[in-house]
């Protein structure tokens, strides 16, 4: 079995150790004997048409503008990959760009890809950033609890076509008001959680792996791994946020 992972714009959107998500997916696939190909896509590159999973991290405003331009150039390719069942995980800045619109702190508007029915608005540099440890309950029952660290100025609101990825137990989530965190639709997932999210949320990592493999290999039962250290980091991160997980 094989898997093709694509890291989109790692040179621009890799502000918070988000490359750890790639490392986690690659390692967890390889430990199960799945051969993994990784493609790093930079600004000038075309998107590989046959990828199974795309990762998009977070960046500063300046870099986000550069990426937004690139995404518009290659947006059609990403949309058709998704239509063919490819999985997308986008974190923070990348999540914002998957929505319809991102209004930056200075009022400038960046049109997003519209792969998720969400809109993000930055209330301005004077507004409080939403920063801190997060513990949330994933709306995907096979995933369970999610832990991570959020740090964003933008407030994201979900439209009818997007479902929240999680309900916040501790932290702000999408906007600090409605208790939602992240969004998903079909095979596209957006989240504000750094940490990075996948290493210490191994059940979410495996959920995405299985979904990505299904595209070309049909339903796959992933063999369980020794996740004691992953679980220890998961529980410790929750405890740091004041939540005791069983």
């Amino acid at each position: 079995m094989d898997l093709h992972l694509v890291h989109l714009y790692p040179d621009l959107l890799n502000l918070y150790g988000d490359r750890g998500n790639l490392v986690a997916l690659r390692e967890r696939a390889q430990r199960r004997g799945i051969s993994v190909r990784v493609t790093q896509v930079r600004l000038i590159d075309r998107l590989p048409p046959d990828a199974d999973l795309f990762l998009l991290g977070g960046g500063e405003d300046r870099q986000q503008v550069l990426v937004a331009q690139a995404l518009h150039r290659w947006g059609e390719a990403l949309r058709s990959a998704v239509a063919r069942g490819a999985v997308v995980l986008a974190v923070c800045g990348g999540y914002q760009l998957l929505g319809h619109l991102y209004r930056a702190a200075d009022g400038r508007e960046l049109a997003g890809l519209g792969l998720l029915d969400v809109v993000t608005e930055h209330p301005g540099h004077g507004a409080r950033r939403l920063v801190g440890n997060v513990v949330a309950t994933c709306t995907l029952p096979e995933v369970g609890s999610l832990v991570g660290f959020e740090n964003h100025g933008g407030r994201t609101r979900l439209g009818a076509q997007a479902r929240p990825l999680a309900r916040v137990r501790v932290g702000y989530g999408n906007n600090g008001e409605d208790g939602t965190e992240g969004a998903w639709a079909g095979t596209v997932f957006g989240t504000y959680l750094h940490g990075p999210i996948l290493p210490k949320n191994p059940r979410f990592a495996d959920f995405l792996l299985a979904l990505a493999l299904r595209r070309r290999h049909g339903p796959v039962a992933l063999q369980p791994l020794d996740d004691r250290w992953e679980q220890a980091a998961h529980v410790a991160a929750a405890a740091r946020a004041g939540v005791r997980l069983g």
Partner: protein
Amino acid sequence: MSLRLTGAVAAGKAVAYASRLLGLGGGTVLPGRVARWIFPPVLEHLAAGLEQVVVVSGTNGKTTTARLLARMLETGGVPAVHNRAGANLQAGLVASLVLASDVRGRPCRRAGVFEVDEATLPTVADALRPRVVVLTNLFRDQLDRYAELERVAEGWRRTLGRLPSAVVCYNADDPQVADVAQAAGRRVAFGIQDPSAGRSALEEAADVRYCYRCGVAYRYEVVFLSHAGHYGCPSCGWSRPVPEVRAERVTVRGTSGFEVELAWGGERLALRSRLPGLYNVYNVLAAAAAARCLGLSGDVVRQATESVAPAFGRGERLAWGGVTLQILLVKNPAGFNEVLRLVVPERPRALLLAIHDRTADGRDVSWLWDVEFEQLRGLDAHITVSGIRAEDMALRLKYAGWPEDKTTVEKDLVRALRRARESTPPGEVLFCLPTYTAMLELRRILARAGAVAPFWED
């Protein structure tokens, strides 16, 4: 003379005295808080009594650069007020001045050398009225607090615009710092000229690769440290300014120091330092550039540089319980990568990684994933992992391919230190790599054991 100024200074001194008497610590911050509470503009009034003020700011290298510079001034016969314990927010600056002033608010020294937190610089620059501003570098660090590097850079840019008579000594090898420095009226650039000291590729965690003027990717001929190197923009032509103070030849001797030949204005200067690693070449360059602006002689710079030993947590070696400890502070990906690059060639047999996530460390430990722990692969070593975020660190090691059976997780630092010592073969060095507050805790533990002096006596 202002009664409130006198009151503020007297109260600050009393708080410091009481704090030490009660064993609460060195009083490097609280006296400043009290003094500011009594008389908010106390910093401006005290600093006005200094004839020359130098501020040192940037992500990495502040403490060591300021120490070097203070030693240079002292050697040159101008001892300086200096926040040497590293308290670099406004209260820490005030505290250092309060303790060095008489009750009428007159500093007992003519010069001041202050390391200043990079986000704090804009709020204290007007009060300090520095003659020289040293800008070391900008790396991603504590993103939960600073939000974005761009905003720190913007704050610096505005600050430099308000200080037309200050000379700005800046790191020409850091493209973001070099770009910011163009806002200054008077500039002196420093940098490493010797390409043999560098590498050819940018490491993963480099923050800046796209031109500040036109957005096109920089081309690097050589990289010394993260994104610091010889760069140029192939589109608009903006490139690294040729520095006036430059390291023409660099010979790094691992953890035991380096030799460097400087072009220093019109002079050549051969320096020898006991400070470890290439990153300290930058600190010596920064201090030497500032020294030139202050009119110090080459002999003074040479003598002072050779006399400075590593500070606690910055490569200092000490004996404890039958082993040698070397403690190297790790604060951010750029610094951690440099420390690993320094330690790995020594073929260490035992390491202690202590990761806290308090405010001063950065509450978000995601940055550990930007550190290249893959460098450790193949070492015959045991790693003890400790701190509030020990589990995160252990997980990072696992995903870097480090074997679980060569890792011990012990959250409590006292017990971890003992375990790490037990894992150190006789005659070998135990390398301790703590984050900032873990470093302070380590120091308290070692001070209780009689191995080091408390930090305020450093």
